[in-house]
């Protein structure tokens, strides 16, 4: 069992090892190793577009994760109380939004927004006071975040709902019987129980959004997220700069992980 786990971890990490190794490549082509150097880290760090793309991705992923965990959890809780046709309708929508492939979401959102913008922009321009420049609706942060959130929000609903289903109902009833306010019941009884699911949903939403290429590719407009930047770099003839970026993102998440682990351990010891 343990050997198997080690094998799977190797499978997961050998390609990453290769990425890291080649990020120290002194040569220009990513496919052949020609001595070691850290020049590509310097290049990546001094490249403002890498920084821009990283920040864009972080903003998008955080917004998506926060929006989906809040909205998803709220909806999951409310759905417990919903019955009849609205319930069926909602279940259907959740089901469809999770099921539709990202590429269709990307394309449908693009086509729909382009159509709406083509209709609204002249309208806006015509009613706008003369002399000032009318605003122009276009793809940007809002469209990516909204498109990502559709999927991740439903993901959170599913995760949280599964947790609620497996939750001990007796506790809630006991709390109610003891005349706790609904808010208190939620805060002290429900939330601690569904918390792991919300956290899992948050993490999944974040990673989904941070890593998504295809939806962003269609609806990000002039914004460049990290995956879009990397895709473009690979197409322009990959240089070890991309490896350096990948390595830095990996290192950052590892540091985060270790800090979290360290803090947790410290707390449990106390």
């Amino acid at each position: 069992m343990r050997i198997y786990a080690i094998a799977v971890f190797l499978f997961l990490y050998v390609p990453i090892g290769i990425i890291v190794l080649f990020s120290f490549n002194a040569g220009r082509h990513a496919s052949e190793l020609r001595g070691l150097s850290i020049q590509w880290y310097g290049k990546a760090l001094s490249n403002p577009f890498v920084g821009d793309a990283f920040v864009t991705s972080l903003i998008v992923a955080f917004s998506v994760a926060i929006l989906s965990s809040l909205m998803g959890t709220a909806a999951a809780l409310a759905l417990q109380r919903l019955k009849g046709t609205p319930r069926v309708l909602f279940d259907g929508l959740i089901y469809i939004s999770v099921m539709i492939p990202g590429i269709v979401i990307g394309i449908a959102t693009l086509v729909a927004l382009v159509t709406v913008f083509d209709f609204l922009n002249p309208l806006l321009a015509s009613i706008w006071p003369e002399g000032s420049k009318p605003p122009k609706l276009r793809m940007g942060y809002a469209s990516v975040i909204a498109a990502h959130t559709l999927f991740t929000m439903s993901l959170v609903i599913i995760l949280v709902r599964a947790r609620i289903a497996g939750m001990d109902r007796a506790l809630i009833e006991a709390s109610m019987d003891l005349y706790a306010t609904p808010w208190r019941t939620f805060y002290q009884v429900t939330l601690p129980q569904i918390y792991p699911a919300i956290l899992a949903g948050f993490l999944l939403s974040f990673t989904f959004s941070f890593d998504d290429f295809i939806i962003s590719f269609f609806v990000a407009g002039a914004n460049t997220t990290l995956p879009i930047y990397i895709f473009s770099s690979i197409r322009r003839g990959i240089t070890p700069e991309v490896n350096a970026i990948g390595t830095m993102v990996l290192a950052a998440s590892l540091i985060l992980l270790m800090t979290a682990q360290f803090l947790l351990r410290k707390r449990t010891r106390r």
Partner: protein
Amino acid sequence: MSKSDDNKPITAKKFMQYFRSYEKGSITRRHFLGVTGLGTAMTVMGTAMPSLWSGKAHAFGDLGDRMVFSTWPNYQNQVNLDEFSAMTGVNIQVNAFGSNEEMLAKLQAGGTGWDVFVPTNYTISNYVALDLIQELDLSRIPNYDPDANNPKFAGPATVNGKVYCVPKNWGTTGFIVNTKKIKSGPKSWKDFFDVTMGKGSGHTILHDYQLTTIGAALCALGYSFNSIDAKELAEAEALLIKSKPHLFAITSDYQPGMRSTDAWMSICWNGDGTQLKNDMPEMDYVIATDGGEIWTDFYAIPKDAPHLDAAYAFINYMQDPYVQARDAAVHGYAPTDSRAIALQPDSLGSDPILHPAENLMNGLEFGAAQTLTDPIRAEVMARFKSA
């Protein structure tokens, strides 16, 4: 007072410092060995060049700090881009595309954020018709000299008497052969497909680009590269689908596959042929005897370019003959500008891949505007890919 000092454009001394450091950067590259002399000339001339030098105080005033440049893979000298950034403070984001269709699709969807892009000759009238590119104000591109450019190449830039772009360079579309792996010496597109389906099975790359891939198949069948005849296209489709099981890949980024020797043969643009041959002498670039493409790429500015000043400054910089020559030394395509050609080292000026003999080019055609937009061609390519 000190504030106004900060705002001063780059000083002469600083400029030379920047310049030298980038020269150093260029010398370490193998590709540049042949052009170091050129680089030195550039430094000397740079001081005397009005466009690069004295005009900078105004021209480089407030260009912002970034711009987006959409172009093709392996198509620019990084040293030029770095130098432009160092001189103007404008950082350049380079996007690489696989086909003109893809650029067109992006521009049609809108909101690209591009400032400068590199369309090919046959696309320009389409862009103008769709109102996607700007008419250029040539007074802002003083480095561009219309008289120095061969009208055969520069012609498509002018639509209805208005100039929409300036030439970057021209080239041919043929194929590249790894002669260590394929010894039969294919000379035509017919040979190309025969070898693909014969001895070289599993090791050929076709472009992910209808114009060149369908064009190659059409030439192999003895038709025009530009054909939009339904019957001829159906035959080309049949040939492509028949060859599909024998392909290594369908991709416009064929250099990695050729370099790793996974692929032995690929449709190829001549400059990429030079780049490959520089590193691997066994690579042979072939202009097919049964036809092919000759083309010019241009610099153009999309209608909604967010950094217009930077875009003009960049195009003007890239039109400088020395910069052009230095660009060509890396990407291996021939400038259309006679001033730049004059600056090329003899080895490049007489290079048969860069400047093929006229008789070899007789069979080559410029791509036609309707070749790009023809719905049958688009659909044939899409069917071939999903076959």
